[in-house]
């Protein structure tokens, strides 16, 4: 079943066109890794999917419904599509628990006790039950990102967007975040994941998309794209990202 269908998605900033017409279908339960050089439009694509950026042209269909352009529609979409950022973007004036509760209380209008119980459950899921009362300033990068994931999960998203969730982390903290994402994959959640962790993409993704210059340059199974890329640019990109791993 198709949960997300994107047709002819174009994004321009002024005169500069960043996405030149992206077509994409996401089936429920799919895990799509998005690769691409810096500046190729990966973040812009993700941000257009939950309308943090307004597409300049094209169509986004969520669960069979074309997403309109009224504020009300956009807000409804954002509640159904969770997003996790490279820089975590936790709310520094709230505890870990407060961060996870915030969407439930302010957006979903749940009562405090209910939201608190749910938030505690999500924190436990990412292994941070003991950090509920801790402020972000006192958390490690890996813990911050796990709180951010719990914050997204609390809203019961049908689709999760990860924008380089481990790129801002010290190498020794990458593993704990990837483990959480992998556990979400094991639950069968639908996700789009921008990452430079090729090994992780290979093992966890059901499909890999290589983005170049604002277009889907190549896509296929992890084996097809990561092991036997057909296009020269994909090969060059993979080579440059692999040169230090062995």
């Amino acid at each position, binding site marked *: 079943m198709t949960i997300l269908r994107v047709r002819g998605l174009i994004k321009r900033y002024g005169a500069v066109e960043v996405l030149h017409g992206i077509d994409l279908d996401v089936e429920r339960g799919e895990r799509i890794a998005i690769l691409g050089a810096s500046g190729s439009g990966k973040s812009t694509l993700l941000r257009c999917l*939950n309308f*943090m950026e307004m597409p300049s042209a094209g169509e986004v269909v969520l669960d069979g419904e074309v997403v309109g352009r009224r*504020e009300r529609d956009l*807000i*409804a979409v*954002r*509640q159904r599509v*969770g*997003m996790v*950022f490279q*820089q975590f*973007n*936790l*709310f*520094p*004036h709230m505890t870990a628990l407060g961060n996870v509760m*915030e*969407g439930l209380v*302010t*957006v979903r209008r749940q009562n405090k006790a209910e939201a608190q119980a749910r938030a505690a459950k999500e924190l436990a899921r990412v292994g941070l039950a003991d950090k509920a009362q801790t402020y972000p*300033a006192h958390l490690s990068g890996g813990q911050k990102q796990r709180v*951010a994931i719990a*914050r*997204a999960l609390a*809203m019961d998203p049908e689709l999760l967007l990860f924008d380089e969730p481990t790129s801002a982390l010290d190498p020794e903290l990458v593993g704990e975040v990837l483990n959480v994402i992998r556990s979400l994959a094991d639950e069968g959640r639908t996700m789009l994941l921008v990452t430079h962790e090729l090994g992780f993409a290979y093992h966890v993704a059901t499909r890999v998309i290589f983005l170049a210059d604002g277009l889907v340059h190549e896509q296929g199974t992890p084996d097809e794209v990561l092991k036997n890329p057909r296009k020269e640019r994909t090969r060059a990109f993979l080579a440059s990202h692999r040169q230090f791993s062995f």
Partner: protein
Amino acid sequence: MRWDFASVLANSDALLVGLVGTLRLFAICLVLGLGLGLVVGLGRYARSRWFYLPATAFVEFFRNTPVLVQILWFYFALPILVPFEISPLAAASLGISLNSAAFSAEIFRGGIQSIERGQWDAARALGMRWGQAMRRIILPQAIKRMLPALTNRAIEIFKMSTLGSAVAYVELLQQGKLIASLNFNPIEAYTTVAVIFFVLLWPLLQFTYWMERRLKRDE
């Protein structure tokens, strides 16, 4: 010469009345000035020119006209144009509040602008509307950063309250003037008024220093 503070002390009830008047004017102008300042500051922050242009005109106008002129204008000129009386309190409140709104608007705008874009992203990604994000995420962080500047504004408002005496509003300076003219003791009367202001405001200023140090430590 001989200092004669006894003649001032004998009028301490008049000074007390003045102090109450000062505090009342201060409270009104603090709430109106900062409240309107927040609204105008949001207008200055807005992308839409329907909000931006009027807010900017307001700020420019009231930052570039003296408060005393405004108070006198509201007291003497406005009643000629409109069919109702303007009390000294109303004239002083209007003049000081509008001026404070113009200055604090720039504090609010700067504070809101200083919050990282990622905070907006995270709030909107959860499905918050603009107002929800502003109220729950942006303003609480911005106000913490703005607190020293806003407290400075409050100190300015407190001092500006003396301008009320220009329209004979009963506050500390007005009462000092009265005592000086009745007892022929301007040195003692005005010195006392100055000391009262100092005693009230000095702790407030120390508080802003303390907040500034704490903010630096937190960031």
